[in-house]
């Protein structure tokens, strides 16, 4: 566990060190719609850009009114924290991220950049064709950057490594599904986030060891089982706070959580098509879930499957897609009797305020289980 935690805590260190060790190039990406396999096959290490809380005096000059994570990304890029990146790629998605991408593009002329149009209309019969066309463009760009063609077996290998990673991460979710979980939400999220920072081949080795460890582990006590919904996350502060109050997050529907690993690439002769189908077919982020609403139903199914007691919806301030999704999700959760608590967060988690919310929420949904100064909360008012 500590290994993963270290990766996450020093989220830029791994890539820097990898570059020194392997000598390869690093490709930074913004959201999880990037078909990483292509970059991996081209010998690059795809690394997810992670927001970080630190004093920010620069981003306001370049970007206005964005969410705090994107301000942080802008800040880090301008401060040169990401100067080890060789390339920066964005897929069509969050526009705040796009703004950060543009700022980087204009301020770091040496950075190789690419914009990949990922269809917002994911379920048209022509969407896959368009994505294949975009993948070919991306592939050509990667080949131009590296000066050599992406070999078929390299791509096969990349797809295999990524699929293995997804399978292992799914296995971790299976362990969380057990009635008495052997893994805490904060641990699982740490692994999840670390996997977006690491070379997947190495990650897979670590992960296998970790899963073996987990199988040996004694399960935790009966805890309130929660589901985490809302915007992407970059730290496990919230999970840890939840755990300190006697609950556990057992499943999530975050774009960089469960949705990142939920489906695998199914082998096809046409590899671009195989990748296109994988990414079009993944559980969608709020932004891409813009035609027929699929998220509410998926959330309900996960809630049933993981037998959750309630849901926490934590939306980043200024995250519009999630703001617009609340309506349908709240409605469905209410109709089906799944209690939820909604709150906004930014990069700082006001611990006390959140603790008060959570205490009240937990004692509402399972009064007997709340840990408040060693006493059980009375059942009635």
């Amino acid at each position, binding site marked *: 566990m500590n290994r993963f935690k270290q990766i996450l805590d020093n989220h830029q260190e791994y890539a820097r060190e990898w570059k020194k060790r392997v000598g390869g190039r690093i490709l930074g990406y913004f959201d999880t719609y990037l078909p990483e396999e292509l970059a991996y096959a081209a010998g690059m290490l795809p690394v997810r850009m992670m927001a970080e809380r630190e*004093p*920010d*005096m*620069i981003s*306001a*000059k370049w970007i206005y009114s964005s969410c705090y994570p994107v301000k942080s990304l802008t800040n880090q890029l301008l401060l040169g924290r990401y100067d080890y990146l060789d390339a920066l790629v964005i897929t069509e998605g969050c526009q705040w991220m796009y703004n950060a991408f543009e700022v980087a593009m204009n301020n770091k002329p040496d950075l190789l950049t690419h914009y990949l149009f990922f269809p917002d209309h994911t379920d048209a019969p022509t969407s896959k064709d368009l994505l294949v066309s975009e993948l070919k463009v991306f592939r050509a760009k990667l080949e131009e950057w590296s000066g050599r063609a992406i070999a078929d077996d390299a791509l096969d290998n990349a797809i295999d490594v990524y699929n293995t990673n997804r399978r292992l991460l799914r296995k971790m979710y299976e362990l969380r599904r057990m009635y008495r979980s052997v893994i805490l939400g904060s641990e699982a999220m740490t692994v999840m986030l670390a996997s977006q920072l690491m070379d997947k081949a190495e990650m897979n080795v670590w992960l296998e060891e970790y899963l073996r460890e987990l199988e040996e582990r004694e399960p935790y006590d009966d805890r309130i089982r929660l589901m985490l919904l809302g915007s992407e996350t970059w730290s496990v502060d919230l999970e840890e706070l939840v755990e300190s109050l006697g609950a556990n997050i057992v499943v999530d529907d975050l774009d960089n959580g469960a949705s990142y690993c939920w489906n695998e690439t199914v082998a096809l002769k046409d590899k671009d098509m195989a990748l296109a189908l994988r990414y079009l077919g993944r559980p969608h982020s709020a932004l891409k879930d813009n035609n027929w609403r699929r998220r509410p139903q998926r959330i309900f199914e996960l809630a049933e499957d993981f037998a959750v007691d309630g849901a926490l919806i934590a939306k980043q301030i200024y995250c519009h897609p999630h703001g617009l999704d609340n309506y349908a999700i709240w409605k469905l959760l209410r109709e089906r009797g799944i209690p939820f608590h909604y709150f906004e967060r930014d990069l700082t988690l*006001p*611990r*006390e*305020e959140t603790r008060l919310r959570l205490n009240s929420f937990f004692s509402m949904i399972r009064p007997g289980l709340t840990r408040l100064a060693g006493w059980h909360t009375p059942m009635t008012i």
Partner: protein
Amino acid sequence: MITAGIDMGMEYVKAVLLRDGEAAGRGIGLSGGARRESAARAALEGALKEAGLSAGDIGKTVATGKGKFDLSFADKQVTEAVAAAKAAKRLCPAATCVMDAGCDETLVLTLDGGGKINEAVLNEKCAAGVGGFLQNMARRLELSLEEMSALPPVAAGGATVNDGCIVFAELDMLSLLNRNVPVREIAAALTDAAAVRVCTVLNDVTVPATDKVVLLGGLAKNKAFVRALEARSGISFVIPDHGEYGGALGAAQIALDT
């Protein structure tokens, strides 16, 4: 000729009298929203007393500040930017940049050699109220402003609060308080966050100034804040005496010049 400049700030009203261009008197008073006009009269009264003059001696009065249009007896109103630039030019002829950090607004101006304003940048609304916030927090922490001003700088790796929003900063402050972090450390963290916030305005001009930057406004009096600001920005500010009277001084100078 006697000219008067009155700066109708959000928290304080400041008055400055010039006798033939030489500073003759100053007066200050809490502005109190709706009572600005009477506060301004009182501040002016104070300045007149110091100068040994009477109201009838004043040849021309120019008002500036957020409430400049509330003053019925002003001959002219000028924006805060114009007044601040004038004051900076007077106090430091070589100034290339002036920053006016007050209760509510933070204004940064870059000047050319002749004192003309190249660029005027006002804080984002999300960064409003920094001065008032610090005072409010001092009150919450049961510190006087003097005590807050005398605090040592924040230690590296110590407590921090949100530097993006004063509303969130207050929540963080209360969390620190609940975790038994010493009040002085919390105050230092708040001061540092305010300095970071003010730095965003300083950075917002096309080419941020590095030298000969004049700091005006009430926050200039807060030593801990100035130290934090200098550490964060890397600028060594020119801090004139009575910097909080900058706007009023500029207005009085404009009354003389026009």
